[in-house]
């Protein structure tokens, strides 16, 4: 195996399936996710990440526009559309969403592996894998939900890092 070669990555179809399952279960079965071309990322205001370590090492990252992040918190917490989620609501809801999606991605990959606790931040999450210095984005899925951008990406440790 050459230095820098990506070891394992989930298929795009698997990411679509996992995201659709999570959305229809926890968020909405009437507002579908619409796959779109990648954007420049400037619309993303919130990030949620979880790392997988063990038999498979990866970073699962979700990014949301402000409106998408607020809608996730409102729906997962059963809030009214006119209720504004506070910081704690956003941290908890986005963290749980990336936890469930990360757990399902992990289940498709070589194991046994462990999930970290989720990290949520306004802007960009800063995290890394234990003992690794280089992450390579392996798969990503850009969607629009409620006409707002959401992105799921999987980065894996390059084998030589």
């Amino acid at each position, binding site marked *: 195996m050459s230095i820098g070669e990506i070891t394992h990555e989930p298929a795009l179809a698997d990411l679509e399936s996992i995201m659709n*399952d*999570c959305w229809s*279960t*926890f968020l909405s079965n009437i507002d579908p996710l619409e796959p779109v071309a990648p954007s420049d990322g400037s619309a993303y205001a919130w990030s949620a990440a979880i790392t997988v370590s063990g038999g498979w090492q990866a970073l699962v990252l979700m990014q949301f526009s402000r409106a998408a992040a607020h809608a996730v*918190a409102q729906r*997962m*917490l*059963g809030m009214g559309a006119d209720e504004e989620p506070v910081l*704690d609501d956003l941290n*908890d*809801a986005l*963290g*749980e*969403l990336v*936890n*469930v999606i*990360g*757990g*399902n991605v*992990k*289940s498709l990959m070589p*194991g*046994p*592996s462990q*999930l970290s*606790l989720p990290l949520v931040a306004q802007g960009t999450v800063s995290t890394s894998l234990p003992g690794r210095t280089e992450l390579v984005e392996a798969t990503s899925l850009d969607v629009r939900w409620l006409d707002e951008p959401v992105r799921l990406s999987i980065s894996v440790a390059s084998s030589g890092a």
Partner: protein
Amino acid sequence: MHALIIDDSRTMRSILRRIVTELGFETTEAGNGQEALDALEGGLVPSICLIDWNMPLMDGYTFVTRVRADPRWRDVTLMMVTTESEHGQIVKALAAGAHEYVIKPFTADAIVDKLELLGLTVSEVPA
């Protein structure tokens, strides 16, 4: 009937609470296994505990082993509700005394099916 919902995520507790409340359960919530044990020690007698695996202070697996080791709580039904889906972990939880295992994300129907399998009478599936 009473359900003790044990998850460090307030969001997940909220989702589970909405489902089982629609089914006629009263609910108590705990943010980790130790809080749940404290509730049992305090006299709470739930029909079922819905238990996450990964939690701070005391994880769900430890909670299951602690409950199963105490004869006072032998009639409490234990159901894991978790993202941990590796076969080895499912076997480990069931061997420790969990009755059922639900993997997130779950539908309300999946929770109802499991409760029926466990012999817990439920009213109807929430819309």
